[in-house]
């Protein structure tokens, strides 16, 4: 399955919906979207990965790169993910300590609201 990307803003939060496979072939498209969003002043990103079928280290690199960019603007990049097979790669690499990972968009929005 290819990669589908969509995004919309709610209050001060930009939600990026990702569907499909994030790998060495498709990750550049996600990277371009994240860079574009940051360049346009969206510094609080929530990447919804509930429909991601596959994620490899290339995709992790893109997410880490996005986090570096938003943090340069005192922003945030957090994730929504409950799939065990996706969470496993975050655990293996220690990135569960770097990203805020929530069980739902609503949960992430509540946490984001509390932090504002």
């Amino acid at each position, binding site marked *: 399955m290819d990669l589908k990307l969509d995004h919309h803003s709610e209050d001060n939060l930009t939600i990026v919906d990702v569907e499909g496979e994030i*790998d060495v072939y498709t990750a550049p498209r996600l990277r371009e979207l994240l860079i574009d969003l940051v360049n346009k002043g969206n510094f609080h990103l929530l990447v919804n990965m509930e429909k991601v079928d596959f994620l490899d*280290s290339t995709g992790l690199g893109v997410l880490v790169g996005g986090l570096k960019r938003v943090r340069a603007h005192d922003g945030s990049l957090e994730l929504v993910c409950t799939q065990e*097979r996706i969470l496993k790669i975050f655990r293996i*690499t*220690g*990135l569960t300590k770097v990203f805020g990972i929530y069980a739902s968009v609503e949960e992430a929005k509540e946490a984001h609201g509390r932090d504002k």
Partner: protein
Amino acid sequence: MATVELTFSALPAHVRTARLVATAIARRTGVAEAILDEVRLAVGEACSRAVEAHRLHCPGEPVRIELRDDAGRFEVTVTDAAPSEDVTPQVLEANGSLMPEIDNLGIAVIAGLADDVEVLPGPKGMRIRMSWPASSPGIAAL
């Protein structure tokens, strides 16, 4: 012992094909459904690393994968032709601050996924061999 060999041009689009082939053969070899995702991810990581290395050093050379049913193990060997230095698998020590680089993250992921991994870097290329338990009769019976 039976072997399936696959070679592909060093293009990112072909990595998905390699993943699919490896997963299909792992399933036929008798690898448990519960660990097929690990096989898919580990093979994808090894192939992605090889493709990136070839694109830097030898874009015209193909990447090679061998899939072997060997004494109750499903063994995958990914071989590239790009010169490589010693590689140490690294797991990020994240303490809230970002690591400045994520080189070798793919190797770290492979090491975390396969219970038997051998990474052999060399001036003529790198070979990554990994294996998982499989039930007989495996590929030989196909």
